[in-house]
């Protein structure tokens, strides 16, 4: 059977786009019934990537029967990618979790909600009394809705009072947030997708946009098909669709992005491609940056990166002579050694060139997951809600006032605990209660043998809330069945600050219920109260949670106060900040050269990028009293592990366009599963020859941490590098108990010192023919 057209050609037909023009509409749809049979169309947007493609779900007979892109939405103008078109089918998968489960005598047994929640609350109360708040950890996701994250942040930070709240967004978006905090002293995406319409040069750093945000890539391809196509620069060790389309493709050795970017910045300064009046008026740190990159010539970087110096010069010249430059950054940078330093250098490029906040002049520090942006805003990851600064007592007092709690109840004596440290505390036994919402660390975290052994510990009480029996849920003490997109109402925000409302179209299956309901149930059972003895959580449904969040965000950079559910129903996606003064939202930040960096207002005083050491308030005030953007640099140092005689290759992991995260949904959509049913191992022809491997041979990738078996695909990657997709786990293979399929059996436990993002694209490996 031939694959559907949009599996074969994921980006569809071109609708050419001239510079500065509006992106033409193109409505994509996939219906499993005749259009006449559709009873209702219900507003939603994609939660299988971070692009925020807006669509309507088609409903017939109480079931979702299809999807159609919304032509009126700024993000996609009707277009949909393959995961948007087919992914919703997982909702009706027969193996959805429909009842709570509790562990009894070693096995998970069905139970009613009262029993399951009674256990969770009972264990919590016991532990809180016996050992205190710091024995609690909450590990959340990038797929809940804003309302749910806000409830989670409130419950964990003020209810329990633990600092150990983070999400799997640590794996996808932490460096984006950190890089923005380092350069602008505050999170918040500077650019807009509309910058693609205007740019004359687009540079993609470690960003396989064709696979990760296919609809945004359609916009780039449409510009490329237009009368005045932008120049395209790609930095990627693989020959991705982006790299093949690019005019300049640099393929550095894994772990050397920082050296490459230091050289590009060196060239900009050396060749005078710097807007001195912008730099003088709006930044601090130019001299330090100049000094730090003084020795970083293209020849110096060529040696480290394995990229010809002439190519680095060519790329630098293109960047230096662009008039409307758009840069995007993703996991190739964020999950590699030197992550924050390299991402910050991309910000520096734009500050040096004075190219921010104008049409076509923007930075998009991207993220992988659909609602990752909301974890950052709401404080469900390593931040306080509303981009508040944990080092600023006034910010904490303000938050305490909004929540009506004692400021000391909200942990703020140190940066909120990052995910890798939360698992470390579990390993050490100092966290004894871990609530995992809608994510699958038993497949997605590095060094899985270690993660499994942590989750299996008897002394750790694990609650897993999910829609399927994942590899992680298998290890839980209590499993809570959840509802997903199309079965619950809420808002979420994409990578360019566009807020969408998604509404319930059908009922969740069985006894499954929205995540918000489970969280509110927990808060009630725990009896959390505010300073006056009233319930701590004062909202009871999505819309009242959204209203509460609006108050928390008011006056902060991520200001939602001008938004309502009604407005989002009327006008589709709107970019925050959306206020009384900017009721239509804000396409771009920093156009006026003013930043959220004032010492009183900023979210972060920054860190030392090499070590992650916090910069204190007094130092920040002294170096940046006027709240300008910060030109910051970090020297290149070698990665924590490099190829050697036993393990001659560099291992990188990554994704395919057809799957999301650990495939819990996408493998249950027939078209997507058929498009990429099994993992593979990608290696260069010379490395294949050296290992005696031919196309399609079953091979083993071996690292000091584990081994993975999969067929070889030869070509499309830099010599000396081996690639394994990370989506695949064990739930859909016949269980002989072997752990030889998930890429994270191989990966190293290491993270970027500043952003704490795990380095999935690091570490050494060898490839052998499997016997």
């Amino acid at each position, binding site marked *: 059977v031939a694959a559907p057209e949009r599996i074969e050609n994921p980006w569809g037909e071109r609708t050419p786009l001239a510079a500065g023009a509006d992106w033409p509409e193109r409505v994509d749809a996939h219906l499993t019934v005749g259009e006449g049979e559709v009873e209702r169309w219900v507003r939603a947007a994609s939660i299988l990537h971070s692009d925020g493609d807006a669509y309507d779900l088609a409903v017939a007979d109480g079931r979702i029967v299809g999807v159609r892109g919304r032509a009126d939405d700024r993000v996609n103008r009707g277009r949909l990618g393959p995961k948007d078109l087919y992914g919703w089918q997982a909702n009706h998968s027969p193996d959805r979790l429909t009842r709570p489960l509790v562990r009894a005598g070693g096995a998970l047994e069905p139970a009613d909600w009262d029993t399951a929640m009674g256990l969770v609350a009972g264990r919590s109360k016991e532990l809180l009394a016996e*050992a*205190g708040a*710091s*024995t609690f950890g909450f590990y959340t996701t990038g797929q809940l809705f804003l309302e749910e994250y806000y409830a989670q942040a409130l419950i964990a930070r003020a209810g329990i009072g633990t*600092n150990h709240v983070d999400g799997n967004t640590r794996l996808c978006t932490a460096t984006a947030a950190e890089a923005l905090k380092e350069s602008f002293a505050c999170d918040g995406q500077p650019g807009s997708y509309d910058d693609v319409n205007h740019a004359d040069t687009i540079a993609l750093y470690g960003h396989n946009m064709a696979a990760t945000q296919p609809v945004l890539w359609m916009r780039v391809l449409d510009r490329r098909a237009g009368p005045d196509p932008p120049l395209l620069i790609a930095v990627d060790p693989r020959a991705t669709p982006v790299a093949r389309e690019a005019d300049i493709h640099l393929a550095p050795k894994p772990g050397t992005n920082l050296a490459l970017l230091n050289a590009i910045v060196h060239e900009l300064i050396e060749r005078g491609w710097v807007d001195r009046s912008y730099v003088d008026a709006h930044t601090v740190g130019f001299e330090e940056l100049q000094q730090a990159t003084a020795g970083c010539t293209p020849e110096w970087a060529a040696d480290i990166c394995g990229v010809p110096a002439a190519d680095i010069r060519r790329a630098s010249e293109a960047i230096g002579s662009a008039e409307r430059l758009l840069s995007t950054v993703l996991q190739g940078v964020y999950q590699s050694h030197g992550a924050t330093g390299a991402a910050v250098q991309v910000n520096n490029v734009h500050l040096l060139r004075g190219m921010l906040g104008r049409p076509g002049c923007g930075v998009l520090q991207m993220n992988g997951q659909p609602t990752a942006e909301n974890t950052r805003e709401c404080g469900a990851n390593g931040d306080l809600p509303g981009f508040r600064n944990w080092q600023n007592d006034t910010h904490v007092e303000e938050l305490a006032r909004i929540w009506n709690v004692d400021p000391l109840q909200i*942990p703020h*004596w*140190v*940066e909120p*605990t990052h995910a*890798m*440290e939360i698992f*470390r*505390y579990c*390993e*050490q*036994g*100092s*966290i004894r209660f871990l609530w995992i919402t809608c994510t699958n660390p038993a497949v997605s975290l590095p060094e899985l043998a270690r993660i499994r052994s942590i989750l299996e510990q008897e002394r750790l009480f694990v609650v897993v809330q999910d829609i399927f029996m994942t590899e992680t849920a298998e290890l839980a003490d209590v499993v809570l069945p959840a509802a997903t997109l199309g079965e619950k109402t809420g808002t979420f925000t994409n990578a360019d600050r566009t807020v969408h409302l998604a509404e319930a179209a059908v009922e969740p299956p069985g006894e499954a219920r929205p995540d918000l309901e489970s969280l509110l149930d927990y808060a009630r059972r725990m009896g959390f109260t505010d300073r006056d003895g009233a319930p701590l959580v004062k909202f009871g449904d999505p819309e009242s949670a959204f209203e509460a969040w609006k108050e928390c965000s008011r006056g902060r950079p991520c200001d939602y106060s001008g938004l309502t559910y009604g407005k989002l129903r009327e006008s589709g996606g709107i970019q925050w900040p959306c206020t009384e003064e900017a009721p239509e939202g804000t396409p771009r930040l920093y156009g006026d050269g003013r930043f959220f960096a004032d010492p009183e207002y900023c979210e972060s005083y920054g860190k*030392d990028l*090499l*070590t*992650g*050491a*916090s*910069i204190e308030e007094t130092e920040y005030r002294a170096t940046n009293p006027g709240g300008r953007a910060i030109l910051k640099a970090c020297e290149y*140092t070698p990665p*924590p592990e490099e190829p050697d005689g036993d393990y001659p290759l560099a291992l990188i992991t990554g994704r395919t366009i057809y799957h999301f995260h650990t495939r819990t949904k996408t493998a249950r959509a027939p078209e997507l599963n058929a498009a990429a049913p099994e993992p593979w191992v990608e290696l260069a022809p010379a490395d294949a020859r050296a290992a005696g491997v031919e196309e399609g041979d079953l091979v083993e990738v071996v690292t000091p941490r584990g081994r993975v078996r999969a067929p070889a695909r030869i070509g499309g990657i830099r010599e000396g590098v081996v690639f394994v997709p990370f989506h695949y786990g064990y739930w859909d293979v016949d269980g002989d108990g072997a752990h030889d399929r998930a890429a994270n059996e191989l990966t190293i*436990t*290491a*993270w970027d*010192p500043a952003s704490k993002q795990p380095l999935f694209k690091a570490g050494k490996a060898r490839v052998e023919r499997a016997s």
Partner: protein
Amino acid sequence: VKLGIAIGEVADAERRLATELERVGERHEADHDVHHLSSTLASISRAHVEALAPIGERYGSEVGDADGGTSGVLGTVREKASELTGRRPEAGLLLLRDLRELFLLASEVSIGWTALGQGAQAARDRELLDVVSRCHPDTLRQLKWVTTRIKQAAPQVLVS
């Protein structure tokens, strides 16, 4: 002129700091950030010793080489031991104690650089002054890292 003595003292202190950083890294393999970063920070201290060597020579001070690392058999033993103790709550207390020790060693280095910088100015020794102004910020960075890491570790170790 006693600058030679001061140079030798800073070099010795840097060497002690480097060695201790490496030891701490080996001892805390299960605290992966400490494990990985301590070797980067140790190599910074060793580079400082190398930078001081030619100037020390001018003042008749034998700075010695940058090595003195303790890897090898002992290091492997420490790494194995750290794997075994990594699961125990006491590992947290041990980490806190080791970080405090690093703070003290780095403080000694830092105040040594301060004194040396004063001497370099009084001696109008531009070359030495350059080394001091290049190296001392690294030491302050090491100190800030240790401080941040202690602030991070202490609440969990002391209260949970």
